């Protein structure tokens, strides 16, 4: 029996969020005595696999037909590996990658799935999982019926696993091309290039709301503040709706969940759907012209005023 962790990676490295899932896997395995292993899927995986192996043994599903993460093929391979390795738990970071693919794998396996898990405990040997519901207004404790369990975890709630003293083994999974479905044709990906750190991995996030009215304004104020703090830039849905910022910068119930050391909210009202994505940040700073804005109720430091004046002053003060 194994605990399988599905890895996400950039060109050469397993992402820190996947290492958070691995940390949870190690902890579960310490109780059950099971083995932990990565499952890495893709094409041309040599360097990714050897990076992954620093943290755990790796099953490598490397095939040209897996070059894009289409749900039909990835779910099939994950289900095949899970069966062959008798996986008791399949874990991953709760990203759109995992949300797209893992429920489909759950259907193939008849598995029970819980997503966005932020904590867990045991009672009478049973695994109790904690996950937010109602845009984070509530926390549910749930149990799962039917192995394997499929669990996505919020990376922001668990520290990334550290490397092993000695690298694990990489074992190739034999991908049989003829068994792969061909239902989803990948066409392309469009993303706004940014030199800033990834939103979910940054130590500081500067996020803005409807107070700003254009992409130029966004860069002029927010971009420069983010750079002064070496942070990532985020936003509310309002700016995404208006086409000022791309969707992948959105923080909240339907966007990304972040918990940086410092979250700076500029001109954000503090709707529950936005709070769902940032309220576990360690320190929250809110700047808003409305002294009654709900964002102040979850901020550690609040400054009432116009962000168009305060942001440049803040950049100047930081650079002094």
């Amino acid at each position: 029996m194994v605990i399988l962790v599905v890895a996400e990676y950039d060109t050469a490295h397993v992402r820190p969020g996947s290492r958070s899932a691995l940390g949870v896997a190690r902890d579960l395995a310490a109780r059950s005595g099971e083995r932990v292993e990565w499952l890495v899927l893709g094409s041309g995986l040599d360097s990714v696999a050897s990076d992954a192996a620093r943290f755990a043994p790796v099953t490598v599903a490397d095939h040209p037909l897996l070059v894009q993460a289409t749900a039909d093929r990835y779910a099939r391979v994950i289900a095949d590996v899970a069966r062959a390795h008798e996986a008791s738990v399949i874990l991953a970071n709760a990203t759109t990658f995992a949300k797209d693919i893992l429920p489909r794998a759950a259907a193939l396996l008849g598995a029970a799935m819980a997503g966005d898990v932020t904590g867990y405990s045991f009672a009478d040997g049973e695994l109790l999982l904690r996950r937010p519901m109602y845009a984070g207004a509530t926390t549910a404790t749930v149990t799962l019926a039917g192995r394997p369990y499929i669990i996505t975890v919020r990376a922001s709630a668990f520290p990334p696993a550290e490397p092993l003293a000695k690298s694990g083994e990489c074992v190739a999974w034999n991908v049989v091309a003829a068994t792969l479905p061909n239902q989803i044709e990948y066409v392309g990906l469009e993303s706004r290039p940014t030199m800033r750190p990834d939103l979910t991995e940054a130590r500081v996030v500067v996020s803005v709301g409807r107070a700003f009215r254009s992409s130029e304004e966004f860069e002029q104020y927010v971009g420069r503040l983010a750079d002064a703090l070496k942070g990532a830039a985020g936003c509310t849905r309002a700016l995404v709706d208006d086409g000022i910022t791309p969707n992948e910068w959105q923080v909240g119930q339907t966007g990304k969940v972040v918990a940086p050391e410092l979250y700076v909210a500029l001109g954000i009202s503090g709707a529950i759907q936005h709070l769902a994505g940032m309220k576990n940040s360690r320190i929250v700073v809110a700047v808003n012209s409305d002294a009654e804005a709900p964002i102040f109720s979850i901020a550690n430091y609040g400054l009432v005023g116009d962000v168009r004046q305060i942001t440049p002053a803040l950049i100047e003060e930081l650079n002094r």
Partner: protein
Amino acid sequence: MKILVPTKRVPSTDEPVRVHPDGSGIDNATLTHMINPFDAIALEEALRIRERQGPGVGVVAVGIGSVAFESELRTALAMGADRALRIDCDDSVLDPWSVAQVLAAIVRREKPDLVLMGKQAVDDDSNQAGQILAGLLDWPQATFASKIQFLEPARLQVARETDRGLETVVIRLPAVVTTDLRLNEPRYASLPALMKARKRPIETVSQRELGVSLEPKVRIMRLEQAAVGRECVRVADVAELVRRLRYEAKVI
């Protein structure tokens, strides 16, 4: 072409949700309800497809739950759905797995070409039912759609909102597509349309007639109000803010 639109009844997103003191669930008594926002977007998209392609397109709204669901199904009719179907069951125990099981049975009965549904229900926030359904049916899926275009009568190009950016895929019908917020802005049901919808029939099938047993795989043991609120220090100016962040919070 037939489009099936699962529509869930959820508490209104404009009101705070309170947990029942015994932790068994949320306090339903004072809540108003609505169609899950993502499902309203799915319905809007189905209606627009019908408007573009003509009356050969049929739009069927499907609710899985108690008789209370009829109110949201009537809203769906008033928005323009051709039919409304309710699968009568105890919705308090439903999880995405059992929802997908029921939907798969409905798909076998109704034989739609497209299931267009929300990416997530804003009460349980699971984001699973569509993907599980696609897996059970062995159909193509395109999740988190922000644009849907027909390339041919049975081929769709879908733009998907992912963490890495906007991904484009092409799939063949029959398929499952789940919606994201930017796909469209749903229309309001007009008052006269709502009045008319009150007299329209809502087809009801019991879960037993459908031949599916509900075997949820997720059990909610307890619900708690999430702790929010911090003691907010109001600072006078930028200099004080930076000083406190540096020496008090030690984050910069």
